[in-house]
């Protein structure tokens, strides 16, 4: 009997003995940034994976228990997670990551947001009044969030503050070099016209100078309808009216392929975050893969 009690206590207490900082990220890109900065001192987890639409996931038990033990929470914010994060926070009983506290980091607060809606009316679809939350498709944004993250990590875990600063510096050097490479490679993409499944790519388009000429969704959040696709066919039926039809891995390929077939515009699946494609295994390869796919779209319509 004594042994059983001891074993149960150990089981319950063991997670508390772990000295690593627990970072709970809502999306995989922030978990990846936390890993870059924190290295061995942090244990990261992501609530969503690259094959899920992060707007709509289940506030399930495994996430509640992960959130309970988090020291720092990093989410894109701008109401991207409004369908599930508040429930996790309420059930997670974790005062350290309460919104507004040091342990709560809303990534989109640290970048200039695009698409800030002038009116929040749902007849316009699923609009985000605070701006487009998919900030991770511009590498400059990722660096800004990394800076904010490193500061918070240093605040919360003063013992390892120096190591976090070094981690940030190392990341910054490698990242800015990589950005230069991407911008050089992508110089030829400037001005290309893009049809996107959903407005998930506005920061990428702003960064590379792409022009979004239409979305497959009639309004944000409503799946592509036959009527709307028909309109798009009329507009883009002449070849040369657009250069790409892009979508994320979790967005249904049917609409993209349908339009691509009838207009001759190449359909490309792009990763929306780390892990979105086989090639996008980390932050660097994530952007490598995006640019590679835009430069050579053939063969990437389905995966």
């Amino acid at each position, binding site marked *: 009997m004594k042994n059983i009690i001891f074993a149960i206590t150990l089981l*319950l207490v063991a*997670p508390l003995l772990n000295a690593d900082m627990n970072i709970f990220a809502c999306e995989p890109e922030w978990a990846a940034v936390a890993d870059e900065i924190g290295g061995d001192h942090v244990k990261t987890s992501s609530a*969503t*994976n690259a*094959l*899920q*639409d992060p*707007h*709509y*996931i*289940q*506030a*399930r*038990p*495994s996430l*509640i*228990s992960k959130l*309970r033990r988090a020291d720092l929470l990093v989410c894109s*914010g701008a109401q991207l997670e409004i*369908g*599930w*994060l*508040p*429930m996790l926070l*309420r*059930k*997670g*009983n974790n*005062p350290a990551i*309460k919104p507004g506290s040091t342990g709560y980091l*809303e990534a989109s*607060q*640290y*970048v*200039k*947001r*695009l698409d800030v809606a002038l009116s929040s009316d*749902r007849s316009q*679809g699923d609009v985000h*009044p605070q*701006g487009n939350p998919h900030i991770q498709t511009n590498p*400059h944004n990722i*660096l*800004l969030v990394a*800076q904010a993250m490193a500061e918070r990590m240093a605040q919360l875990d003063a013992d390892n503050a120096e190591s976090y600063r070094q981690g940030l510096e190392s990341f910054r050097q490698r990242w*800015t*070099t990589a*950005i*230069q490479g991407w*911008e050089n490679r*992508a*110089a030829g993409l400037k001005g290309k016209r893009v049809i996107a499944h959903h407005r998930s790519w506005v*920061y990428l388009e*702003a*960064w590379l100078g792409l022009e979004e*000429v239409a979305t497959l969704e009639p309004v944000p*959040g409503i*799946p592509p309808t036959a009527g709307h696709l028909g309109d798009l066919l009329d507009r883009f039926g002449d070849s040369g009216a657009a250069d790409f039809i892009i979508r994320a891995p*979790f967005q*249904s390929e049917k609409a993209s392929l349908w339009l691509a077939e009838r207009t001759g515009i190449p359909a490309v699946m792009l990763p929306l975050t780390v892990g979105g494609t086989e090639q996008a295994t980390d932050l660097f390869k994530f952007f490598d893969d995006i640019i590679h796919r835009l430069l050579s779209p053939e063969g990437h319509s389905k995966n």
Partner: protein
Amino acid sequence: MPVIEAMTDGPKTIFMEKVMRFLIPGIIWACLMSTAPPLLAQQQTEIDILRSELAEMRADYEARIALLEQRLDEAEKKAGEQTASSDEQTVQTVAQSTPWQPEPSTSQVRGDGNSAFNPAIGVIFQGQAWAYENDPEDYQIPGFPLGGHVHRPEEGFSLGEIEINISANVDDKFTAWLTAPIVIEEGETGIEVEEAWVETMTLPAGLSLRMGRFYSSIGYLNDKHQHAWDFADNPLVYQAFLGNHYNDDGLQARWLAPTDFYLELGAEITRGDQYPAGGAGNSGFGSYTLHALTGGDVGTSHSWQAGLSYLQAEVEDRESGGGHDHDHDHEEEHDNGPVVFSGDTDLLIAEFVWKWSPNGNWRQRNFVIQAEYMWRNEDGSYTLPESGSLPYDTDQQGWYLQAVYQPFPRWRFGARYDRLSSDYPGDAFIDTPLMPAQNNPRRYSIMADWSNSEFSRLRLQYMLDKAGIEDDNQVGLQYIFSIGAHGAHSF
């Protein structure tokens, strides 16, 4: 007249533009012509006056425009100096760029300070149309007198609950939630309080405390609001044992274990005034509950939750059954009025739910299967309209199994099986509502619903109800629409 065709304008817009180009000059011309004849005589001097006024105005506006242009130039210069990444972060080499100055998040800026702290408000509109074979007002399940919030929608069109939800943080330690539906029942309109609670946000060690009126956390469906149900109504076990849902006034404590696997333990002490409790026994601390929940993931596509919960109440004069019709004249044949229970009630619930969605991409495709088993013992006495008070100590059980499948976005299809069973209550209860039927009550339900967005839903449901005195075929159409803030749904 050339028609300017914009790339982004559909045919409708082009037509409207054409119309406007003819219409507006036409209207102006018509107005001018209609006023022309009587004024010819006076026009000469008036024209001169108007001309000079116009000239003055023009000079004034030109001066203003020049000033504005100058200010705009200055502002643009300033903006250019401050932010090197300029507008829209265009392609640039690393050497030239300087990092963005972080901007604070644009919170909803409201007019005056008083509205800045307005809570989140949402309203949910519900309505339905039902067709029954038997009169829904006569519905009863032999052996299981129904009480609490159970009432079938009327035949034909009827308005459902209009649910008003208001929530906000109180201060740095507490958050509050109100669900106050406007309910129309038997022609009477009233506002009820379903939930009005305050919860702590900053207790240590994984604890939280909730006080006020709340849905008890026993069972899987008990704390889900009606608009979040997968069917238009709740399973029979909820109708028979919990009066649709048990909500009462009191205190709830929850503890979340600091483990890798999800483990939540909770306890509640409540007044004991609502069905299945009643009468606020034990001086107003009439009922308590316990629950334990666990769950986890299997890979990225499956997640599950299982739980066990228990409710115990000291009941005083709890009314149930009897139907809602007041001029029902079968009372001479059976004891068909309301029955009143006093005694102890014990309820045990086991719940299990399994959810599947390829890669967890919920919106695209998903499947949910869930089941709950309930066991109840009521030990006390029932007072019947004609037979007086009779001792009653009986076990009853029931369960349901439900599956809902979403094969593609917006469409869901569900099937559900309900079953109840009761031990024999004793000969004294022959010909009373407490006597169960020979065949165990059961019911088959299927539904299909279409959701344009996560804020609107239309549902068609059919039920073959073999739980009542007579078999009944029931078909219903239901709508659920929500505006304003919408709380996140639990698992």
